[in-house]
Every structure is written in structure tokens, then in C-alpha cells.
């Protein structure tokens, strides 16, 4: 058997996993890996900051549903991807992050660019490996991809000391691996699904709550069948936004802190909820105790630890959401259960929906968020992929941008990472080059990773940055207006920089859109062009995101625009 280096075996193992693209930035401790990357067929996308590499891998992973790969060197390179790893963990995104480490003999001696990345990332990875011999690398890679992509997906870290990359050995590539403490797929208990059906049928005011698990397991058709067979209205979590077409008559949209008024209202009136792939985050349900009052909860989730974590469950179905829902559809069809016509509940749901859609006050500014996002929806093709940054624009997207094609909307919903949306959009574009990819952004968030414009331009991964620009850290400003008696501090970005010029400086296209008509035209221009585009939309810095469920209060206490 021929001897090869650890770095070479890493590349072969990655290729065997079907990796054809990786995002990263080289440094002293991962040069042997980069030298092999040079010789491999894997496309390398050079970032300008490692954090963006991790977000690109995350975006790629969420869209392709295969682990995205990022590379960073030891020390600061590795610590720069920590935010990206935490983001992927919070949103269950499949990712394999590969860091260089100082040579094994130097570990623990506070060497130059040494950081204990295994220790640092322990609470935010699904698993971490540190192979200490080249022979371990193929098995580690195989296990890493298996762990990252199966069950509840998540980030896996592989930290490879430089000498382990360099040393040569006769290396064996396993065709399969076994991990005795890891059992990602549990067959759902059919009796529990039967109980769930009985509970749904015996309830008067049922609601389906679709979470991110529906999108991860691609259970769109199954979810829609159940909603339509039982005529149950569908609300989603923010992460689950777009798990169900938001133009469907049964759709009420996201619940939560900035959920749709009709969704929050109906959620609080329901007597039974079928929660699919949702972890009942505080942002979705408000106060835990209030949420579960007078509510029977059926909880489907692939992660048994989610059952009973935040809410008391009446019926638990542990297993892949798609599999569980498919079994449920089959049972409903076998039992010939199909509801037709109007019930008191469906009447109430429709009236509530109509009431809020017609009577909520719209912000008077000509570029009010709702108007801008409705314009965007008109001009953006349904299959386009949308990511968001984090802040007011993100919550406006939740409220006013309807996702029609399921699984085309992605956001940093769990960790709330500013700077995520743009690099994630670039990763998404790499996964799906044939559809337009647009980042609904705010300038405060975009600032954090805007140097990825270089990547978008040079790597021919053109995405559209749809920039709600109020030159303010808007969400913080809104909280200061609301909860701190308008004592504004640390939120004014003072008209700096000029985003059209920033775009142009990177060789991208910058368009300032000052009317709704210009917004529409700018998006159309951007879609037609093959270059990254920043659409700078000056909005009113005084506009709040409403409705609003204040932190620590219940969905019942929703504040409406007045």
C-alpha cells in the first residue's frame, strides 16, 4: 500500500463524501491541507474573514441539505468561525468545519496561534474530532459527515494538528463507520401517531405549528396533506416560515414575538396543537406557562431531548418529522378521514385572518417595510431563495414577505447572528446557482460581513443584497424607544458609509431605490444581471416592527400598531 499524507487522505475522504466546494482562508497551521486542496477537484472559495466562511458553509448546507465545508487555520482562524458554528448549532444546520492546529507536540505549550478550539466549541458543536495520527483521518471524516447530516443536523468540527496533516502513512478508507453511542433515526411509534390523530379529531380548535424540522426533513407535501385533510389552520415558528405556502388559504404565518397578528391570536385560542419539528423557543411561544394553559400539545420531533424541554407534552412522537407525518397521512386516508365545509372554528380562523389583514395600520412612510416587501414579493420569482440578516428587517420579512415555494426562506433564527444573511446567501447561491438568491438585509447587520462582496463578485456567486437602510441599529433603537424612555445610545450609524459606493468599490452593482417603483425595477435589474447587487433603500428610522410581543410576556399581550 502506498503511503500518503494526512492532508492528502483528508482530501480523498472529502471527495468520497461528494464534497465539491469548500469555503475558507489559509494560514500557517492548515497549509498542508491547502497544498492538497490545490491538487484536488474541490473548488475553494476564498473568504475575507473566516466567520463568513462558516456562514457560507451553513447557507450551503441548509439549501443543499448536505454538510457545507469550511476551512480555517489554528488560533484566531479557528476562533473566527466560532460564531458560525454556534449559529449552525442553534439552527440545526449541517456543517463540517475543518481547522488546522499547531503540531501535536506543541499543543498545551501556548504556542503561536494555538487555541483550544475543541474546548472552546464543546457546547456548540454536535461533535468534535481531533485525529492524532494520519490513519484516523478517513474514519473521522466519514463519521463527521454522518453525524452532521443525520438525525437533528448540526455542526461537526475536525481539528487537525499540522504534523498529522504532514505525516505519511498507509491509510485505509473505510466504506462505512459505526458509532455505537449515536442512534439518529428512531422509528416513530405508530400508536403515538394514532393517539395524536384521536386527539386532533376530538379537539374543537386545532392548530398545526410547523417548525424548522419540517424544512430540514422536507416534509412539505405531508404537512400540506394533513392540513387539507383535516382542514386545520397552519401557523409556523419563525424558523418554520415557509414550511407551508404562505398564500395557502389555511396559512396564518409565523407566531411569536413578531408573528402575524392572526397567527398569534388563533394560537392563543386553540385547544390543541400539532407541533412538527419545533422546539417551542421563547421567541415563538412567549412565556412557557401561559402558552400551554388550556392547550393539548402533540409534539413530533427527531430529538427526544426536545420533548418536554420547554412545554409539557400530551402526546410525543419521536422520529423524523417527514416519516411521522407520512404515516399520519396514510392512517387518515385508510380511515377515510376527510373534513369538508365550514366549522365554527374555521369560520373564526378566517374572520380573524381577514380582520387583521384588513385592519392593521400600515406605517405612513412611502417606503414602509410592508410596502417594500410586498413589492419585492411581486417581482421576485417564487422559487428564489431568500436569506435575512438579523434585526428589524428580519422581523419585517417574517411579517410581510410571503414565502410561496416551501423551503426557500432561511434566517439565523436561533442565535440571531448579525452578519449571517449575506455570506449565507453566497453559500446558498453555490448550492443552487440557477435561482436568484436575495439577502433581505439591514445596514447594521450587513456591515458585519460586507467584505464578502469581494467573494460574491470574484467567485461569480452573484447575490442581491436588499438593504433596508435607516442608518440605525433599528431593533435596538426600537427597544430603547419602547423600554428605555427614548434614551438613544449606540444606535446611530450617522449616514456612513455610502452603500452604492461600497458595492462599486468591490466591483459589484450598487443601486439606490427611493420609491417603490425603483425598488421593483432595481430587483428586476439585479435578477437579470450576473453580478452581485446592493439595492440601497432609504427607509424611515422611526418605523417600529409591529405587532410585537414584548419579552417575558405571552402571545395574548401582543402590541398592535396604533
Amino acid at each position: 500500500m502506498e503511503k500518503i499524507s494526512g492532508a492528502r487522505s483528508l482530501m480523498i475522504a472529502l471527495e468520497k463524501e461528494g464534497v465539491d466546494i469548500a469555503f475558507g482562508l489559509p494560514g500557517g497551521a492548515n497549509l498542508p491541507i491547502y497544498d492538497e486542496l490545490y491538487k484536488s477537484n474541490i473548488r475553494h472559495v476564498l473568504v475575507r474573514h473566516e466567520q463568513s466562511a462558516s456562514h457560507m458553509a451553513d447557507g450551503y448546507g441548509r439549501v443543499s441539505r448536505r454538510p457545507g465545508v469550511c476551512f480555517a487555520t489554528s488560533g484566531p482562524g479557528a476562533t473566527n468561525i466560532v460564531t458560525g458554528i454556534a449559529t449552525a448549532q442553534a439552527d440545526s444546520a449541517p456543517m463540517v468545519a475543518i481547522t488546522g492546529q499547531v503540531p501535536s507536540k506543541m499543543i498545551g505549550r501556548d504556542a503561536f496561534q494555538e487555541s483550544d478550539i475543541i474546548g472552546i466549541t464543546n457546547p456548540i458543536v454536535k461533535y468534535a474530532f481531533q485525529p492524532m495520527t494520519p490513519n484516523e483521518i478517513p474514519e473521522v471524516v466519514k463519521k463527521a459527515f454522518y453525524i452532521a447530516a443525520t438525525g437533528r443536523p448540526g455542526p461537526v468540527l475536525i481539528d487537525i494538528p499540522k504534523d498529522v496533516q504532514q505525516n505519511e502513512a498507509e491509510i485505509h478508507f473505510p466504506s462505512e463507520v459505526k458509532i455505537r453511542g449515536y442512534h439518529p433515526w428512531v422509528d416513530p411509534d405508530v400508536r403515538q401517531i394514532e393517539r395524536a390523530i384521536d386527539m386532533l379529531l376530538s379537539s374543537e380548535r386545532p392548530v398545526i405549528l410547523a417548525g424548522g424540522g419540517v424544512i430540514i426533513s422536507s416534509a412539505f407535501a405531508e404537512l400540506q396533506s394533513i392540513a387539507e385533510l383535516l382542514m386545520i389552520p397552519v401557523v409556523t415558528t419563525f424558523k418554520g416560515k415557509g414550511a407551508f405556502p404562505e398564500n395557502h388559504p389555511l396559512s396564518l404565518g409565523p407566531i411569536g414575538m413578531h408573528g402575524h397578528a392572526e397567527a398569534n391570536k388563533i394560537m392563543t385560542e386553540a385547544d390543541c396543537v400539532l407541533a412538527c419539528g419545533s422546539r417551542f423557543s421563547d421567541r415563538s411561544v412567549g412565556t412557557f406557562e401561559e402558552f400551554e394553559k388550556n392547550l393539548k400539545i402533540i409534539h413530533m420531533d427527531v430529538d427526544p431531548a426536545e420533548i418536554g424541554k420547554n412545554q409539557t407534552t400530551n402526546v410525543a412522537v419521536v422520529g423524523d418529522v417527514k416519516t411521522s407525518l407520512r404515516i399520519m397521512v396514510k392512517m387518515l386516508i385508510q380511515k377515510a378521514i376527510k373534513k369538508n365545509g365550514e366549522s365554527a372554528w374555521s369560520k373564526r380562523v378566517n374572520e380573524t385572518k381577514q380582520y387583521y389583514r384588513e385592519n392593521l395600520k400600515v406605517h405612513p412612510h412611502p417606503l414602509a417595510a410592508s410596502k417594500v416587501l410586498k413589492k419585492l414579493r411581486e417581482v421576485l420569482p417564487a422559487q428564489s431563495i431568500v436569506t435575512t440578516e438579523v434585526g428589524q428587517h428580519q422581523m419585517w420579512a417574517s411579517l410581510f414577505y410571503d414565502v410561496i415555494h416551501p423551503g426557500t426562506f432561511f434566517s439565523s433564527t436561533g442565535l440571531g447572528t448579525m452578519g449571517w444573511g449575506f455570506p449565507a446567501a453566497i453559500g446558498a447561491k453555490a448550492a443552487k446557482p440557477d435561482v436568484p438568491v436575495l439577502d433581505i438585509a439591514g445596514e447594521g447587520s450587513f456591515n458585519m460581513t460586507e467584505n464578502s462582496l469581494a467573494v460574491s463578485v470574484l467567485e461569480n456567486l452573484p447575490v442581491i443584497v436588499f438593504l433596508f437602510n435607516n442608518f440605525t441599529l433599528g431593533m435596538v433603537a426600537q427597544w430603547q424607544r419602547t423600554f428605555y424612555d427614548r434614551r438613544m445610545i449606540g444606535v446611530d450609524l450617522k449616514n456612513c458609509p455610502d452603500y452604492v459606493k461600497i458595492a462599486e468599490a468591490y466591483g459589484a452593482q450598487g443601486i439606490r431605490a427611493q420609491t417603490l417603483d425603483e425598488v421593483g425595477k432595481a430587483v428586476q435589474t439585479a435578477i437579470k444581471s450576473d453580478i452581485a447587487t446592493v439595492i440601497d433603500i432609504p427607509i424611515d428610522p422611526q418605523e417600529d416592527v409591529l405587532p410585537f410581543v414584548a419579552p417575558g410576556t405571552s402571545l395574548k399581550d401582543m402590541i398592535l400598531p396604533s
Partner: protein
Amino acid sequence: MWSIISVLVENKPGVLFKITNLFRSRNYNIDSISVGVTENPEVSRMTITTEADEKQLNQILKQLDKLIDTLEVKLLEEKKSVYRELVMMKLKVSKPTDIKEITDLANAFKCDVHDVRKNSIILEITATPDRINALEDLVKGYGILEMARTGICALARGYGNES
């Protein structure tokens, strides 16, 4: 509620850190923890005692189970398990009659006496926490100079059908 959790884990570096870090990051409480290799050199057993209400205990068990390096997580019921802790206490000897008194107490508690000196004596007891606390109460008067506890070590009673 005081509970004993028995966890079989991969016997490899970093696993103890993962377990304790889980308790720290999720704000659970570790009352005691003891670790040692089992009959299978690839597997270690950790015995963790914790104070938690039922809901939190349930979460602790599930979160432990979720860790990839845990192979088995079991809640041990006090009545259906054998659990002991080894404790050493170094007591102050103030006057010659103390030695006799302490040795009598040690006999009553079936503990071993080590290192008898003019000014100190070491007792070793392997017992349930209740018995250890009772002994501690009784010897406190002499003055406890130093003390070391191993944490609880436990096994479920019976095997297979017997348990």
C-alpha cells in the same frame, strides 16, 4: 430530589469534560461524580448524583443520552440499587483517651482506622451517604482536620430479569 444517574461512556479523553460541561452549560447541578473504567477497557462508568426536580431530571437524562459519547444512561432507584461512597476523615487527637473512643466508634461503624498518631488519626468508611453523615456528626467534636470523599459509586441490583 436527590438522584443517582449511572452513565456508561466511551473511555477516551475529553468525555468527562463533555459531561461536566453539559451540566454547567445547562445550569444543572452535580452533587458528586465518580468515574472509572469497567470490565470493558473501552467503556467507563460515571456515577453522577444530582439535585433536580422531576422535569429537570428528565432533561438531564435526555441531554446525557443525546451526547454521542454516552452509551447508556440509567436512573438508579435507591431501593433497587447498591450505592456506596468511600470517605476518609483525618481527626484531631487531643488527649490519649480520644484514640480509644474514636476506635470504638470506628468499630461500631465498621470503618477502618489508619495512621494512628499522637495528634491525628485517619478513618476510612465505605457506606451510604446517610451513614457517613451520621459518623461525621459523631466525630465532629474531636475536630475534623481533613476530609476526602470519592462521590457515589453504584450499581443496579440484579441482572436482566432479576432486576
